């Protein structure tokens, strides 16, 4: 399994944090674990948003320099978000999805909404299929991450049918 932090080296340490009553497990390589240390873990818990935002700066390995990542809809950059703690528009969630997913997991213990599913006015059927598809893709991603290939194959077939 790859390290959750650098996404390069193999994970050798499982760091389980109990945040509120939710368990969050991070798989880290030795180097990232050392860098994070216990100190990082606890400070992140104290002020999840602030500390995580500054930690993002260190951990980013995306090809595009993260700061200049820009939302095509409203023009806000990831830097703007780091400075203000507020997103520019709904599309920012798509544009900064990878960064936000990690942040949401730290803040809430999960990035997957399990509450009421909203259907916009007039587009009930279409939205349903689209949302189902996105759900399945997400489940597929997680199945692959957890190396549950049998489930992954099943999900892939379901996705093909819907597509």
């Amino acid at each position: 399994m790859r390290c959750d932090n650098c996404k390069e080296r193999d994970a050798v340490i499982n760091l389980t944090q109990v945040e509120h009553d939710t368990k969050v497990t991070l798989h880290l390589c030795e180097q990232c674990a050392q860098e994070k240390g216990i100190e990082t873990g606890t400070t992140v818990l104290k002020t999840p948003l602030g500390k995580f935002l500054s930690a993002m700066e260190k951990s980013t390995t995306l090809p595009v320099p993260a700061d200049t990542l820009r939302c095509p809809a409203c023009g806000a950059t990831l830097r703007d978000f780091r400075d203000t703690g507020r997103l520019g528009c709904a599309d920012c969630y798509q544009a900064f999805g990878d960064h936000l997913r990690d942040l949401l997991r730290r803040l809430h213990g999960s990035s997957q909404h399990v509450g009421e599913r909203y259907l916009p006015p007039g587009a009930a059927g279409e939205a349903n299929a689209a949302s189902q598809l996105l759900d399945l893709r997400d489940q597929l991603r997680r199945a692959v991450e957890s190396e549950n290939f049998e489930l992954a194959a099943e999900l892939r077939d379901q996705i093909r049918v819907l597509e």
Partner: protein
Amino acid sequence: MIDLSLLPDGGVAWLDASGPNPHIVLSTRIRLARNVVGHPFSLRATDADRAAVLARVSDAAAECGELRGAQLLRLDELTRLDRQLLHERHLVSKELAALDREPSEARKASAVLIDSPAGVMVNEEDHLRLQAMVSGFALEDAYTALESVDTELGQLLPFAFHPEFGYLTSCPTNAGTGLRASVLIHLPGLVLTKEIGKVLQGLTQVGLTFRGLYGEGSEVVGNFFQLSNQTTLGKAEGELLDHLGRIVRQVIEYEEQARDVLLKTAAGTVDDKVWRAYGLLRYARSLSFEETMNLLSGVRLGVGLNLITGLSVYTLNKLLIHTQPAHLAALEGRPLSDTEERASRASCVRRLLGAETT
């Protein structure tokens, strides 16, 4: 000046202490954060963007049966005093009322739809903050009221929603359900027995948070605490409410136990303390807000323990609202100096307490 009596239930129907556990829990408030597709969030919005959002929301509200009796107030057209009045009634956040801003001017097109029990703040941090406030400890009632407004408005306006992240909000701490439920609870027993620290620490360990009387960023006065959920994503609305409800029930139990301990170990002291508080409130000629809150806490404890009889929780709730600075200025019909405000507060307290015999 706005006439608060024209608002549905004066915007404060929850004061009547008709809900469950009213002597310990004053009110239950739930809000849902929602944004309209196609408009930037408030911090990035221009005045024109905000005006467009307000136009869409007020059109939708006009069509919305659940908001039939709602009154729309534009905060950018109100004086600072009026905005503060609405904030003191917990109808508008400090942020939307622009009380901290200098000069204190509300953002263009910021507004509030006031209805009982559910209303909507418009162009706050999120385009819509649907909110419901009910008397006592009644999470389910508050949510039921809010859910029907949410469902109807969601069919009149396209809300920003993502299959993975749920309802999309300006701050990621609200994403998912967008739901924040708060219970305003009075815990003098735990404070007097010095158990409160442990209880508050325990709360943060189970994913809850506490704040003062006016919510985020406000200080705890008069032993009033707002307990609310910290996370909004990864759990369904029902689970979030169940969890908060379970913990609040436990806190109520602890508070009742602490009150029993006080009565068993220091009955005389407690009796003296609550009557002294009553005496001061009943006869003082000058009262600061903080002192009033602390004395009201003592009297409320006395009423809860049946040491003081003949005084209703409703009157105590009214006192919490009517002794606030903007309410006193509105009552006197002019801005007040500090000294005048203290005198006016003491007179307001004497009048309301004097109307009830103990």
